[in-house]
């Protein structure tokens, strides 16, 4: 690193260390049982053992993984599909893509409340169908909020994340359009070669990056499952929040242990995806460019 780049990166690194490292450090400290406010001064692994050994906590972790993976994969697939459609349509309607930027600007909590008003059994759609006569009772409307499958939660993530994926990949797809595919075909590449050597190397690094962003975000999301989730199926963040706001301060180390495990899982998934991406065609590109 040159001195100049240090100068520019310095403020960000400082800010990051102050905010993230301090919080992380505090999390580790409390989760290891050091919490002098209530007189806990001895380091112990007991809280991690509680969290990892308890069936209820394991279920929370499993449920969070399920929600995050379903939402992330669906958002990536549908978002990429939408990007292709936007690409084709953008020649005729250049402003169309801007329309899909609206959901990106809305906060998750607003979208969650919107879904609650629209999708619940006493919500807009249900009442509309009831007024029209399709439903005899609003109870006949399927349960999409507070349901065990987390459909309402996934709907919020998809509403927010599909346009995000589409807009992010659109720029890359536009490069593809510049003629790389035609050039490869002209030079005699088979469709398989075109995909493996041209499309995949260009698209997969951004998809991998998006996967990491979306997974970490949905996995740790609090407000959406808090508003729309089923009480019987909690995500890690909601469980940690419930523990943290309990009257009894002695359960706080457990909440922090849960938070730390949540961060570790995010870190592990990030490293895994980066590793896979680096080994795929196009993965080494970034390094080569640097050199």
């Amino acid at each position: 690193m040159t001195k100049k780049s240090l100068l520019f990166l310095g403020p960000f690194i400082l800010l990051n260390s102050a905010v993230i490292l301090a919080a992380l450090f505090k999390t580790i400290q409390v989760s290891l049982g050091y919490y002098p406010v209530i007189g806990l001064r001895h380091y112990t692994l007991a809280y991690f053992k509680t969290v990892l050994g308890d069936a209820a906590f394991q279920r929370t972790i499993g449920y969070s993984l399920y929600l995050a993976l379903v939402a992330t994969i669906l958002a990536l697939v549908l978002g990429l599909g939408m990007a292709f459609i936007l690409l084709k349509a953008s020649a005729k309607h250049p402003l169309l893509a801007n329309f899909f930027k609206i959901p990106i600007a809305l906060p998750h909590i607003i979208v969650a409340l919107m879904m609650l008003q629209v999708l619940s059994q006493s919500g807009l759609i249900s009442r509309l169908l009831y007024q029209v006569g399709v439903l005899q009772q609003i109870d006949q409307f399927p349960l999409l909020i507070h349901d065990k499958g987390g459909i309402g939660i996934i709907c919020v993530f998809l509403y927010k994340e599909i346009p995000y994926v589409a807009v992010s990949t659109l720029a890359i797809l536009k490069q593809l359009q510049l003629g790389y595919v035609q050039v490869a075909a002209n030079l005699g590449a088979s469709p398989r070669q075109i995909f493996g050597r041209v499309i995949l190397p260009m698209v997969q690094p951004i998809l991998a990056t998006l996967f990491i962003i979306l997974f970490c975000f949905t996995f740790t999301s609090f407000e959406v499952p808090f508003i729309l989730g089923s009480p019987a199926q909690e995500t890690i963040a909601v469980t940690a929040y419930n523990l943290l706001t309990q009257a009894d301060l002695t359960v706080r180390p457990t909440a922090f242990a849960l938070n730390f495990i949540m961060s570790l899982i995010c870190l592990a998934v990030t490293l895994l995806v980066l590793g896979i991406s680096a080994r795929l065609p196009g993965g080494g590109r970034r390094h080569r460019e640097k050199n």
Partner: protein
Amino acid sequence: MKKKWYWRLAALMVLLLLLPACKANQSPKSDAGSGKVTTLSAAIKSSKGKTVTFYGFGGDEKANLWVDQVVTPAMKKKYDITVKRVPMDIDDILNKLTTEKEAGDNKGDIDVVWINGENFYTAKQANLLYGPIANKVPSFNQLMDVNGHSSKYDFGVKINGYEVPYGNAQLVFGGDKTKFPEGFPTSSAKLLAYAKANPGKITYTAPPEFTGSAFVRNIICDVVGYDKVNQAPATKAGLYKVIKPGLDYLNTLKPYLWQQGKTYPKTTAELDQMFAAGQINMTYSYSPMHVAEKRHDKEFNDNTESFLFDKGTIANQNYLAMAKSSNAKDAALVLINEMTSESAQLKKAEAKYGYSIPPFDAKKLSPKANQQLTDIYNNQGVPSLAELQQKQIPEVQAKKIPIIESLWKEYVLND
């Protein structure tokens, strides 16, 4: 190169981890915050021109309006004190106080806190409040039942003068009387019978939602009796043994609930919405005037009325307390006295400020004030003050609440 960098970071982390352990051995700082308060008259003198903050739940617009339109102008006019209302959830307030304490900050900007129950227990556990102050507040001595249960215990936690009663809350049910031709279910047994005859028309908000948690406790008290719950040990096993009939009742009720009890609404706002839409036939609230408010706002129809269990519903009070780290304890004392004064509280009881019930002892109030209160509550579809006071169960001890919630989760929700 890279590896070394990681090792350095790791070493740094370990070092940081050990640092506070050393610091902890030093003697703790003496009394945090500045100043002490002796009497109200001294406080009034020394607090002139000061600013005092009021931290409390900001989601109740009518209560906010009362602070802004009644308390703040009165404080300025009478004592030349500026009141700053800071809306913040009590969890965040306690976190802020805890963090300030951990950081050794003794000039906190939280002065007066609106608090009760579990949170008071937390605050006491972490030693975040200043006191005792109740005996220095004239409106407490002159207008309230100084020896009453709620002046001495908050959710079973000894108050010792660290809180001043501020308002009343009691669990009250609401129902559309046309949907209960045989009368409202005024006991857990009648509620079960009604649910069996009308499957899917009853539900409750899932604990740890505040009011849903109270509903579950109320059912448990109705089934096994308050005294048994009160005397039960505050351990998971001990409490389970005592409240098991209550949990069994909730499991019997479960298949007749909305969605066969497989899921529950999560907020009372949702419960109210489902009730207003006719999806369920019963709602509830911790505010005894809830039905009157909702009828006034045209959200509930005029057939909606309140009812209580014959054996009583859970009642508690909410309180005002002073932060230990407060920088303006004298002004805080003046504010607490003003907020609990007769003139301010009678305003708070009016419809536009949320029909709140004052924490006063009816025997200590003037006949005129008593009459004024009675008139406010008449003909609103809500129980009379006398009925409310007659059918009350005290709150169970704060530390039992999370245990009951986790037992509910284990044996009712996930069963």
